[in-house]
């Protein structure tokens, strides 16, 4: 097994998952890169997470309703324990893209339904996703389409469909927004009230033909009595849509792009790669699984190691999958869900329909401290099997400070860090080794503490914030 294979596999698993232990990486290298990509793209080939296990411990999460701030805990537990990591990562991608939150929807249940839909259909056609989203009661309420009537058009959903979910600003006119919105009149939800006394009923999509504007519309150069689905077909035929979705995929899976609102005025960092993804989408009729396979096996992907700042979910889930002993639903699971929130990513409650600002904007002095403290605490918890395994591997690597530091960096990534940072770590390990050696030149028994301390320094490195 070459170092290169291992580095590449680690990169793949960070992006198409939440990172992996060294044991898992070695096993996957044996399987091979392309074969691993295929496995990840076929989640049904993996043993699924038994969500009833979680519900047995936390039955209220069957329908978390308005539960204060913790409705996402079930999803967090899935992400920690799933074998089908790309499937959950893709849910996170779509949740960021179709950002919908309890701040307005008020109820976790309908947003969870959306995540379940992403899980089930995310690797299929983007048109299917768009149609599902256009029928999602959470989205219809979030973007006010229940207030979009034949007699009085509400443009919120129609605009965001074009601006945020498909084409991006500057590729359509205000008339297009209007006509698009008209086509979705009558697409609403039932049972939106009552909310009080008896709780709330599940929402369902409802089409009200009497409230639908069936008249002629002129949309992106086409004329006809379009309804919502025909509008979506016209949108998908636009090259701008393929480019926009391609850029989203690139920014989430390959390398951080500027924030979405800047896209209309800032070209992609790698226009050729984005165009290649767009071409692939057009050729496959927007089959997302096909596009992901293209991306994950491309050279531009393989060359983009550590080109993204980890989002809070990646920090928490990645750490937990590394240290292990996380399977049983427990108050710890709840705490971890809260930790993600406290690092600035309140899942199922994004700050706006634009989703979270990502990349470097995840980091401020408060969140950096929380990230560092969270990982440093877990990586030094010797009761966890993943930590024991890391310590064993480093112990086996040799006694010199250089060997120790390099083994730590290797098993924690393999990580690539600035040479000066590596020298600092070696200096630190040397100082500790001197301290650990008694006057007779015999070695004290405390080398595990040394390794533990070096690991804590490594997770505190700036370089560790990247995926």
């Amino acid at each position, binding site marked *: 097994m070459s170092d290169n294979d291992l580095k590449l596999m680690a990169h793949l698993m960070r992006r198409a998952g939440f990172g992996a232990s060294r044991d898992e990486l070695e096993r996957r290298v044996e399987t091979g890169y392309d074969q691993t990509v295929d496995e990840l793209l076929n989640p049904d080939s993996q043993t699924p997470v038994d969500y009833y296990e979680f519900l047995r411990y936390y039955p209220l999460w069957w329908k978390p309703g308005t539960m*204060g701030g913790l409705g996402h805990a079930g999803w967090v537990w899935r992400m920690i324990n799933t074998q089908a990591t790309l499937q959950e990562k893709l849910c996170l991608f779509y949740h960021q893209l179709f950002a919908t939150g*309890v701040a307005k929807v*008020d109820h976790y249940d309908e947003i969870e339904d959306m995540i379940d839909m992403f899980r089930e259909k995310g690797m299929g056609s983007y048109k299917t996703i768009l149609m599902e989203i256009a029928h999602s009661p959470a989205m219809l309420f979030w973007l006010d389409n229940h207030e979009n009537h034949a007699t009085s058009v509400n443009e919120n959903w129609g605009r965001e469909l074009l601006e945020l979910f498909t084409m991006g600003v500057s590729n359509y006119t205000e008339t297009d927004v209007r006509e698009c919105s008209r086509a979705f009149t009558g697409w609403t939800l039932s049972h939106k009230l009552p909310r009080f006394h008896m709780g709330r009923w599940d929402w369902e999509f409802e089409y009200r033909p009497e409230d639908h504007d069936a008249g002629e519309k002129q949309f992106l150069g086409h004329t006809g009595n379009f309804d919502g689905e025909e509008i979506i077909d016209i949108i998908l035929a636009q090259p701008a849509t393929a480019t926009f979705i391609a850029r989203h995929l690139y920014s989430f899976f390959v390398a951080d792009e500027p924030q979405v609102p800047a896209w209309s005025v800032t070209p992609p960092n790698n226009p050729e790669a984005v165009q290649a993804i767009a071409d692939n989408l057009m050729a496959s009729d927007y089959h997302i699984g096909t596009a992901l396979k293209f991306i994950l096996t491309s050279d531009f992907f393989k060359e983009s190691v550590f080109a993204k700042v980890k989002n809070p979910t990646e920090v928490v889930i990645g750490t937990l999958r590394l240290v292990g002993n996380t399977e049983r639903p427990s108050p710890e699971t709840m705490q971890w869900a809260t930790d993600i929130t406290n690092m600035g990513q309140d899942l199922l409650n994004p*700050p706006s329909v634009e989703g979270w600002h990502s990349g470097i904007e995840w980091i401020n002095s408060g969140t950096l401290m929380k990230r560092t403290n969270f990982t440093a605490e877990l990586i030094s918890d010797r009761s966890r099997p993943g930590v024991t395994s890391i310590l064993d591997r480093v112990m086996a690597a040799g006694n010199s400070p250089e060997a120790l530091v390099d083994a730590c960096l290797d098993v924690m990534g393999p990580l690539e860090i600035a040479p000066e940072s590596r020298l600092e770590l070696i200096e630190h390990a040397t100082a500790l080794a001197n301290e650990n050696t008694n006057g007779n030149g015999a070695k004290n028994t405390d080398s595990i503490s040394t390794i533990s301390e070096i690991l804590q320094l490594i997770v505190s490195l700036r*370089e560790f914030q990247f995926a």
Partner: protein
Amino acid sequence: MQTTGSPEITTKSSDPVIVVLQLSGGNDYLNTVVPHADPLYKDYRPIVNVADEDVLHLDDQIGFHPSMGPIQKMYQDGNVAILHGVGYENSPRSHFRSMDIWHTCEPETLGTEGWLARIVRDIDPNKENVVTAVSMGPSLFRALVGPGVPVATVENINSYGMLTGLTPEEKLNRVLTRYRRMYSPAIGSGKVMDYLGQTGLDALKGADILAAAPANYTSDVEYADSSVGKKLKGIAQIHLAGLGSRVFYLDHSGFDTHADQIATHARLWSEVSTAIQDFFDDLEAHNAADNVVMFLFSEFGRRVYDNGAGTDHGAGGVCLAIGKGVKGGQYGEYPSTKTSDLDQGDLVPGTDFRSIYTTLVEDWMGLDPISVVGGNFEKPEFITR
């Protein structure tokens, strides 16, 4: 403790300080400021009411909940403003959405920037003090979030800092010394690495500054043992250390009293009132109370009719402003409780919450309110400054 000598103090001790206490869950207005003379009160609240003989009468119309003795005392001293009927139009009765609106001042659209973050930016545009705003508790509240605005979120003042899980202290200091070296601008290159380096050093600096607070703190005031008491004690320690912190935030949760309201509401207000008294006593004993105003709000009031055991989500609520800078009394009208005046069973707020913010921002903090609250609002004059 990660102290590195005394921090630079860049502010005057007279600069106004605001402490925002968020009562999370929706505090019941009717049982906080009880309209005891209103015959409708008992009709609406056959079970979840405060008995007339228990109400702490303020005048012949209203009185505080019996757990609010300490606040009644401060009211009598002229240091409490009761801000009646505060809210906004078309209350969604949703915790999440309501809280968002209070935090961002955006009742129409989804806002992403907090009103207090805008205050912090106005106070310290060059980010010279990384502890201008301190949030006590683990959460980063949206009210404090804004692009490039540093906020220290302090879960526990005694263990706040980078890598504080590391023990013993000798090890922590050794690791932090190395951390500083590894975050030095000399290492790495590029905008992202530079930003990360600066942020890491800022975080250390903030932690160092705040670490000095409990070390230098002594007090004869013994805070009651509650989470809100602990948080306020932490705020007192930071305030008394004179670190230039101007905005403090904390919350106390549990006010979502759909059931078992009588016992729960009494406990919550007992904790809050006692903690507030301890806090101001502490500041007073240190001659440091004059420049502190505390502001209490909740995301909404509760339904006028009780449900047999508690109350459901409502609309208009009550806010309190407390401190020597406050002109004590009552502001605005208690909303009409006539059934025909209720909106879907709820009190109709007569005062927009942004009016209250306007007073706090302009009259207390001395800043331009329009950019903070997003518009021109008439302000009740409950500040004496």
